[in-house]
C-alpha cells in the first residue's frame, strides 16, 4: 500500500466516523451513547496498558494516575488557554475548536508520557510485585498532588471543562490506539517488547536494549492513558480525583488480565465486558458490586489465562472452533 492510499484510507475512516457520529449521536439513546463512549475510553486504557503489562511483561497498576495527568492537563489547556486561542485564531470555530481539543489531548498525553518516563525508570531495577506497588504508589502520589493544585479545582474538582469529546473523537482515538499498539507489536520493536517479557537476560544478550524498551512501553502506554483521561474530562465536562483512584487502575488491570495478557482483541473484548457488566447488573441494585466481584473471581478461577490467552481473535480460529463443533455434531 503506498502512502497516498494509506492517507486516503485514513480520511475514509475519519469520514466514516464523522458520519457515524452525525448519524448516531443525535438518534441514539444518550445512555447507550455514553456507555459506548466509556467502552471506547476503556478500550484505549486496556490496550495501552496491555503494551506495558501484557507485551512487555512489566507490571503496572498506576494507569489511573497517567489518565489523571492527561485529563487534567488537557482540561486545563482547553479551559484556560483554549478561549484565548480561539479568539486569536481567525478561523471558523468548527475548525479551530477541534484544533484546540486535539492540541489539549496531545499535550495531556505528552505530560502523561513524561510521567510514564518517571515511573518507567524504577522498572529498570524492580520486578513483578515490587514494581506493581511502586506504580500504584506513583498513581496515588499523582492524585495527591492534583488535590493540592487549586487552579485545577483541587478537592472541588475541575468543572466547566468544555464539551469537546464526541463519538467521533472516541472512535478515532480508540482505533488510533489499537492500530498503533498493534502495528508496534507486530514489528521489530514489538518483538523487542515481547522478548523483554519472555526473558530479559536473553533479550539483552541478543542486543535488545531492554532498559529502553521497558521505559518506552511505559511512555507509550502512559501517553494513551493520558489521551483517555482527556477524552473523559471533555466528555463529562468535569474532573475529580475520585475518578482516578487505584481502584480505576485495578479495573484496567482486570481488563488486561481477563482479556489475556498480550492479546489486543482480548483486551478490547474484556474492556467492553467489564464496562457493560456493571450496567447489566444495575437491576440487582445493592448486590451489583457483590455480583461483579463474585463474577470476577469465578472468571479468574475458571479461565486464569484470560479469555484469549496470548492469542488474538481471528477468523481462522473461529472457523476452527466451528468446524470442530460441526465435526462433533456430525460425529454424534
Amino acid at each position, binding site marked *: 500500500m503506498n502512502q497516498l492510499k494509506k492517507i486516503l484510507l485514513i480520511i475514509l475512516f475519519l469520514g466514516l466516523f464523522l458520519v457515524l457520529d452525525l448519524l448516531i449521536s443525535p438518534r441514539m439513546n444518550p445512555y447507550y451513547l455514553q456507555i459506548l463512549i466509556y467502552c471506547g475510553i476503556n478500550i484505549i486504557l486496556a490496550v495501552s496498558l496491555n503494551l506495558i*503489562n501484557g507485551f512487555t511483561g512489566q*507490571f503496572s497498576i498506576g494507569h489511573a494516575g497517567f489518565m489523571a495527568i492527561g485529563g487534567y492537563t488537557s482540561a486545563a489547556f482547553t479551559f484556560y488557554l483554549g478561549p484565548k486561542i480561539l479568539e486569536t485564531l481567525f478561523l471558523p470555530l468548527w475548525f479551530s475548536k477541534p484544533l484546540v481539543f486535539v492540541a489539549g489531548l496531545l499535550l495531556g498525553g505528552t505530560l502523561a508520557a513524561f510521567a510514564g518516563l518517571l515511573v518507567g525508570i*524504577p522498572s529498570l*531495577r*524492580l520486578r*513483578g*510485585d*515490587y514494581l*506493581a*506497588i*511502586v506504580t*500504584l*504508589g*506513583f498513581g*496515588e*502520589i499523582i492524585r*495527591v*498532588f492534583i*488535590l*493540592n493544585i487549586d487552579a485545577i479545582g483541587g478537592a472541588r474538582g475541575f468543572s466547566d471543562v468544555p464539551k469537546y469529546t464526541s463519538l467521533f473523537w472516541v472512535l478515532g482515538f480508540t482505533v488510533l490506539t489499537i492500530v498503533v499498539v498493534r502495528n508496534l507489536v507486530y514489528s521489530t520493536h514489538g518483538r523487542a517488547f515481547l522478548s523483554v517479557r519472555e526473558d530479559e*537476560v536473553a533479550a539483552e544478550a541478543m542486543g535488545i536494549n531492554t532498559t529502553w524498551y521497558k521505559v518506552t512501553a511505559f511512555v507509550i502506554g502512559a501517553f494513551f492513558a493520558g489521551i483517555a483521561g482527556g477524552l473523559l474530562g471533555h466528555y463529562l465536562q468535569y474532573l475529580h480525583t475520585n475518578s482516578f483512584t*487505584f481502584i480505576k487502575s*485495578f479495573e484496567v*488491570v*482486570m481488563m488486561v*488480565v*481477563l482479556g489475556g*495478557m498480550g492479546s489486543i482483541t482480548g483486551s478490547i473484548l474484556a474492556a467492553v465486558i467489564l464496562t457493560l457488566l456493571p450496567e447489566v447488573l444495575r437491576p440487582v441494585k*445493592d*448486590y451489583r*458490586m*457483590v455480583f*461483579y*466481584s*463474585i463474577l*470476577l*473471581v469465578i472468571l*479468574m*478461577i475458571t479461565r*486464569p*489465562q484470560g479469555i484469549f490467552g496470548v492469542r488474538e481473535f481471528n477468523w481462522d480460529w473461529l472457523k476452527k472452533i466451528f468446524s470442530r463443533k460441526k465435526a462433533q455434531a456430525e460425529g454424534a
Partner: protein
Amino acid sequence: MQELIQQLINGITWGSIYALIALGYTMVYGVLKLINFAHSDVYMVGAFAGYYSAHWLGIAENPSVPKAILVMLISMIVCSCLGVIIERLAYKPLRKSSRLTALITAIGVSLLLENGGQLVFGADPKFFPQLIEGQEIWSKSGIVISNLQLIALIASLTLMGILQLFVYKTRTGKAMRAVSYNIQVASLMGISTDKIITITFAIGSALAGAAGVLVGLNNPKIDPIMGLLPGLKAFVAAVLGGIGNIPGAMLGGLIIGVAEVMTVGYLSSTFRDAIAFGILIAILIFRPAGILGKSTTEKV
C-alpha cells in the same frame, strides 16, 4: 520539643497497627508470593467481629481487660476462619496459574468483602465499644500517653514476639520457613504444603483480626471499607521492612506510622497518603530487598 515527642508517640501507636497488618501480608507473601489484597478486608472483618461479639456478649456495656482479650480472641478466630476459606475457595485453585491471575483474584476477593461488608454490616460507620476505658497514664509538660496507645504497642509487640517464636521454635514454624524458601523442596521433606499454607493464612488473618480490634480500641470508628488504605500501606510497610521478614514488617510498620504522623505534623496532611509510597519508592530504588531483607541475585 514535647510536640516532637508527642508526634513520635502518635506515630508509634499508629505504626504498630500497620505492623500487625503487615505481618499477615509478609507471611502470605513469604509463602505464596502473593499480595493478598483481601488481607486488608480481613482486618475490617476483624473489627466487625469484635464489634458484634462485644455486643452479643454484653461486654460493650461493662468492659474489663479480660473481656477485651476475649473479644480479641473471638475476632482472631473469626478472621482465621475467613482467611482459610478465602485461601481454599479463591487462591488454591490458582496455585499453578500466573501470579498476576492470583493477584487479580485477590483484588476480586477484596472487592467482594468490601461490597459484601456494606451489605451485611451496613455502609455507615459503627462505633466500636470501648472495651477498655481510655485513660491518661502519662501527662507531663504537654505530652500525653493513653493506656490504649500503650496497649496497641504492647499487644502488637507481644503478637509479633509470639509469631517470631512460633516461626523459629516450633516444628510447624520451621516447616513454614521451609515452604517459603522453596515449596517443592519442602514437600520433599514430607511437609504437607497445603496444610502449611492454610496455617499461614490462619495465623496471618488472626493477626489482622487483632489489628482490627486494636484499631477499634484506639480509633473507635469502623466501617466496611476501613481496610482499603491501611491495608495498602501495611503492604508497603511489609515491603519496606523486607518482605517475608517478621521483624522487618514490624519495623516497616513503625517507620510508615511515624513517617506519616511526622508528615502530617510538620509538612501537610495532604501528603499523608503520598509519603508511604514516597518512602517505598526511595527504599526500593536504593535497597530493593527492603531494610531487613536479603537481596538475592538472579542466576543466569
